[in-house]
């Protein structure tokens, strides 16, 4: 037997080793080089399932009940097949929601129910009690066995005194302290403990090695292999052999448990024990580790089970009975004189127990803190010292869990074998199974069902299993078992409703599951889920579908905005400032916020959820939800449902069918008509009908930029006057126009100032103002929508749809405007054409009339002038002959005398002048410019040869600037026209300034024309005269010295050339521009 010092020494070394492993893992994690993030450690940590219950207990169970003990390990092996389906789903959901425990998971699934979280926690604490107790029992007993101590006490030297302490109690204290050191040194925002996982994995290696060692020792050292043990046993104890290796005879054993019960309980336990949930789900760092663990973990179980039967049979062979069979792995080597093997097994058992107790207590204390303490704490305003309170509550929780186990051990300890104690716990946690699986795969599973089911299942378990276990230990009288409560035999705990002949565990399992599943299904079917539950249920059940669809759109909003800084300060109170800042920085990412931390209405729910998830890491999802909700209600804000205008079913391109329908309809309306008014009216009617709005108004800007209502659709229509409630909205319309984005008021009552009094009085609860514009262009107007029934109507998605509709409308308006402009231009052009034609006709008629007059005058007056001249000449000759010519005839106005000859000469000269004017006029009218007389001439030389020489002797100077340009021209008419222009200058321009007169002809050309720019520096061209006046026939004024025929000549020549004459008003006193086509038209 090893000395006590050696045992304690080895234990200390082992514990130090464990700490070193944990410390190493934590350090590596800080350096971001996680050693546990691989499938091997993950599988080993799951193997923490193998506690002393299996380590020692399965040997005992085999010795007493036979082969069926194997089912404790086969059950978890079989369920691994479904891990890729179930476990991966749980892991995904937990990571998405920062789940901290199984209570958190279940309470979150059923609408963050605080009650459910608390219930699961209480069941976990009470249910795990026997499990902890069995670990304490196993270590204490194995310690007595190996050290030879008796009486369940340990002597401790304290100064000079020797104190006697129950070793179980001492063990509970030590385990509690270890658990605190491992799992509750500080509060973290995520409930992951790498050191703890590394220690558990290390434990798993130790216990495997130690049990394999013991097995090999017994099988091959003490006996000659498997065959030897079985043959000897069969020979020595044939009856026992038959009992152990067949299944039917075994039922005579009062503690016989059918294989199916064992299988079901162990399958449930591997998934639902709080610590298994913790290492498999919370500590999972990569979903891909699951698929390796799916076969590695069963291999581990297979190996650890391999020598269980040989050890059990070897124990019976060595000791002669199955008494104390739980500890054959220690007692057999001791009896055979191999204390070192016994010590190895003891260390294995120690590791199996310590790993389990530490993880279990830490996990349950987290649940205790999050689901029992936090719901109370959240009712108080957050204080700075909360973090100290929380960590100490967690430490307290650890002590509580372990000491409850110790209490159960003291009560029940010696009556039950290890496995049977463990199965009491397994029966408790399997109560979570219906709610868990239902939560994962059945959307209708609801809170009422989960609470009722779990509660009824738990009460049944308590009544049919826990209480009988106390009765068996003698702590409670056996009356209850034999005659039932109040003498009602039908209610006996072990034969409920008369169901006799079943073992304790199967009986309890049947009834608890019957009530649990029954209540869960019934309540889920009969009770209605609320919105929140429905939303979470669909997220849980369809977690992978959610991943497939892109970003989720919000269906909730906050009734009063909260800034990002307010969220940070809330986080700080629970997870400390640095963690809070780090978390919020990670959230900010690429998102943009203004300097005050204001967040858009659509961003707020995401921020709220983010805050919740972060808090959930510290306090659990349900408490986090409660904390954030209470924080918001303090701020006067709350989450409220947004009327989900688009059903949850989404068609391709992330568009709901409704949305697509409305878009389609809108396009149809816009394309159906060219009349903007019809388009606007129809569009508003469509919106009104499809979205249950109460009023829709379109305002458009006019040219001056002021808006006016163009279309109005809705109930209670009244003419829009100054008294109309819509007038209050104009400010918002202006906002929308100015910053070119939609303005929404999802709850008019929350508008603090009295800006919308009349609108609210009208019954409007939400409204939106959406600029009608095309991308990057100024808005044409505003679309205003009003609802009287639904606050929070205007979701991000809805506004998106409306904006796209206003975009289409803007396109229609733009087209309409362009069309209007085109029409206007056309009309103007038509008018101008008509005016020109009228003018031309008038001019032609005028010209024709003038020409007719001239012809008439010439025709009639010329002979009359000759007739008039002839007698005057005769009279003159007659008077000359009679010498009467010099006689004074009359006196002039100036007093001088006028002779007869002078008077006659004046008459004749006037008549001659009249004849000359008539000749000139006739020339203009009668002379013809025939097309065949046009010739191709070089214009510069034409000027130099035919025009300029005529004016050589004049007092003014003529400049010609020209290149050689060929043009098809009628020589005579053009020369005459140019001469007329020059003569015009001579007559009108240079009357008093002939010496300095300069005329200039600048001749240039473009593709189609030659352009003759004529300027002179004489008197300015009269302001009141235009080109047509200049070109018209006749004298322009009474004082004009000319005959008024020059302009007519110019007009005639230019017309004949199909040219154009312009008077240019610029710095030159006179500037005419003449265009002649290069080709004669």
């Amino acid at each position, binding site marked *: 037997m090893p000395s006590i010092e050696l045992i304690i020494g080895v234990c200390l070394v082992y514990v130090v080793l464990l700490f070193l492993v944990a410390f190493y893992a934590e350090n590596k994690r800080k350096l971001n080089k996680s050693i546990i993030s691989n499938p091997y450690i993950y599988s080993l940590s799951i193997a923490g399932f193998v506690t002393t219950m299996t380590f020692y207990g399965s040997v005992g169970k085999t010795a007493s009940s036979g*082969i069926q003990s194997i089912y404790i390990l086969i059950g978890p092996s079989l369920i691994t097949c479904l891990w890729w389906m179930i476990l991966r789903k749980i892991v995904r959901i937990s990571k998405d929601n920062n789940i901290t425990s199984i209570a958190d998971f279940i309470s979150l699934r059923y609408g963050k129910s605080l009650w459910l979280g608390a219930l699961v926690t209480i069941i976990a604490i009470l249910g795990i009690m026997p499990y902890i107790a069995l670990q304490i029992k196993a270590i204490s007993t194995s310690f007595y066995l190996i050290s030879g101590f008796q009486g369940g006490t340990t002597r401790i030297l304290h100064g000079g005194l020797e104190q006697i302490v129950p070793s179980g109690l001492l063990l509970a204290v030590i385990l509690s302290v270890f658990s605190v050191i491992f799992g509750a040194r500080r509060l973290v925002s995520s409930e992951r403990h790498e050191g703890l996982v590394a220690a558990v994995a290390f434990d798993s290696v130790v216990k495997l090695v130690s049990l394999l060692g013991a097995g090999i020792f017994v099988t091959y050292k003490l006996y000659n292999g498997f065959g030897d043990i079985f043959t000897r046993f069969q020979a020595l104890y044939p009856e026992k052999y038959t009992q152990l290796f067949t299944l039917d005879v075994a039922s005579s054993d009062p503690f016989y448990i059918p294989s199916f019960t064992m299988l079901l309980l162990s399958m449930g336990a591997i998934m639902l024990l709080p610590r298994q949930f913790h290492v498999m789900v919370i500590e999972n760092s990569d979903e891909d580790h699951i698929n390796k663990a799916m076969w590695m973990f069963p291999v581990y179980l297979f190996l650890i089970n391999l020598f269980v039967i040989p050890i059990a049979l070897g124990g019976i062979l060595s000791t002669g009975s199955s008494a104390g069979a739980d500890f054959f792995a220690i007692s057999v080597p001791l009896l055979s004189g191999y204390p070192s093997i016994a010590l190895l097994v003891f260390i294995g058992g120690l590791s199996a127990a310590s790993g389990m107790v530490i993880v279990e207590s830490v996990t349950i204390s987290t649940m205790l803190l999050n689901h029992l303490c936090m719901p109370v704490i959240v009712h108080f305003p957050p204080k700075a010292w909360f973090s100290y309170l929380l960590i100490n509550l967690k430490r307290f929780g650890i002590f509580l869990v372990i000491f409850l186990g110790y209490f159960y051990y003291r009560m029940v300890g010696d009556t039950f074998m290890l496995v049977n104690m463990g199965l009491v716990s397994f029966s408790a946690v399997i109560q979570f199974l219906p709610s868990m699986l239902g939560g994962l795969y059945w959307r209708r599973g609801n809170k009422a069902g989960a609470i009722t089911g779990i509660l009824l299942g738990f009460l049944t378990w308590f009544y049919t299993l826990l209480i009988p276990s106390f009765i068996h230990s003698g702590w409670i009288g056996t009356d209850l078992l034999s005659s039932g409560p109040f003498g009602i035999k039908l209610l006996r705990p072990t034969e409920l409703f008369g169901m006799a002949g079943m073992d304790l565990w199967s009986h309890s399992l049947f009834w608890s599951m019957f009530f649990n599943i029954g209540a869960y299904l019934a309540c889920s079917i009969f009770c209605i889920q609320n919105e929140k539950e429905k939303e979470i249920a669909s997220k849980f059940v369809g977690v992978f579908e959610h991943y497939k669809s892109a970003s989720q759109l919000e269906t909730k909003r906050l009734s009063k905005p909260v800034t990002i800084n307010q969220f940070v300060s809330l986080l700080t109170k629970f997870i400390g400032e640095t963690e809070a800042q780090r978390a919020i920085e990670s959230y900010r990412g690429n998102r943009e916020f203004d300097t005050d931390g204001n967040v858009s209405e659509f961003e707020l729910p995401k921020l709220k959820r983010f805050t919740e998830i972060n808090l959930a890491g510290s306090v659990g999802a349900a408490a986090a939800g409660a904390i954030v909700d209470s924080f918001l209600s303090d701020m006067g804000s709350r989450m409220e449902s947004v009327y989900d205008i688009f059903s949850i079913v989404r068609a391709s391109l992330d568009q709901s069918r409704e949305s697509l329908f409305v878009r389609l309809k809108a396009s149809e309306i816009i394309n159906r008509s060219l009349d903007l008014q019809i388009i606007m009216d129809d569009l508003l009617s469509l919106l009104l009908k499809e979205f249950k709005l109460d009023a829709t108004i379109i305002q458009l800007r006019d040219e001056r930029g002021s808006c006016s209502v163009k279309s109005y659709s809705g109930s209670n229509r009244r003419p829009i006057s100054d008294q109309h409630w819509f007038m209050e909205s104009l400010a918002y319309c202006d906002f929308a126009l100015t910053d070119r984005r939609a303005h929404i008021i999802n709850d008019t009552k929350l508008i603090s100032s009295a800006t919308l009094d009349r609108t609210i009085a009208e019954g409007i609860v939400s409204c939106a103002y959406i600029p009608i514009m095309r991308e990057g262009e100024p808005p044409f107007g505003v679309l205003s929508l009003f609802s009287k029934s639904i606050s929070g109507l205007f979701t991000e998605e809805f506004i998106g749809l409306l904006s796209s509709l206003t975009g289409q409308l803007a396109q229609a308006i733009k087209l309409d405007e362009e069309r209007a402009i085109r029409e206007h231009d056309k009309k103007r052009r038509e008018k101008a054409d008509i005016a020109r034609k009228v003018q031309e006709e008038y001019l032609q008629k005028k010209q024709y009339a003038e020409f007719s007059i001239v012809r008439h005058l010439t025709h009639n007056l010329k002979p009359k002038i000759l007739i008039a001249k002839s007698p005057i000449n005769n009279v003159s000759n007659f008077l000359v002959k009679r010498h009467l010519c010099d006689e004074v005839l009359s006196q002039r106005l100036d007093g001088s005398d006028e002779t007869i000859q002078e008077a006659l000469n004046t008459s004749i000269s006037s008549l001659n002048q009249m004849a000359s004017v008539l000749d000139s006029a006739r020339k203009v009218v009668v002379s013809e410019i025939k097309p065949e007389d046009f010739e191709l001439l070089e214009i510069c030389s034409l000027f130099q040869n035919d025009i300029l020489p005529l004016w050589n002797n004049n007092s003014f100077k003529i400049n010609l600037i020209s290149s050689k340009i060929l043009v098809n021209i009628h020589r005579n008419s053009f020369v005459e026209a140019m001469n007329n222009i020059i003569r015009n200058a001579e007559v009108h321009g240079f009357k008093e300034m002939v010496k300095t007169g300069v005329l200039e002809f600048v001749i240039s050309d473009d593709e189609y024309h030659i352009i003759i720019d004529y300027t002179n520096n004489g008197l300015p061209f009269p302001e009141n005269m235009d080109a047509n006046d200049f070109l018209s026939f006749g004298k322009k004024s009474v004082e004009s010295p000319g005959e008024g025929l020059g302009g007519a000549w110019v007009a005639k020549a230019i017309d004949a050339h199909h040219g154009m004459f312009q008077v240019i008003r610029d710095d030159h006193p006179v500037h005419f521009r003449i265009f002649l086509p290069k080709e004669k038209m």
Partner: protein
Amino acid sequence: MLRNLIRKILICLSNRETQFILFILSVILLNYPFIKVVSYTFIILKLPFINLYLLIAWIVYIITVFIIVKAINKSDSNGVNI
């Protein structure tokens, strides 16, 4: 031919229905009353027959799960038909 068959089996194993059927099948084969069929007491290959049956069944099961895992990895590891 053989390769095609293996491929088909792998595809079959990677879907969740097969996994579920396999689970149910193994529960049936390892459980009462089926286990009574093999509950003989004679010793074969140094082990009682029932013990041998359970151990072999266990090993076969582990190998099957191993193949399923390979099949899952081979098909889309992000298989979303869950």
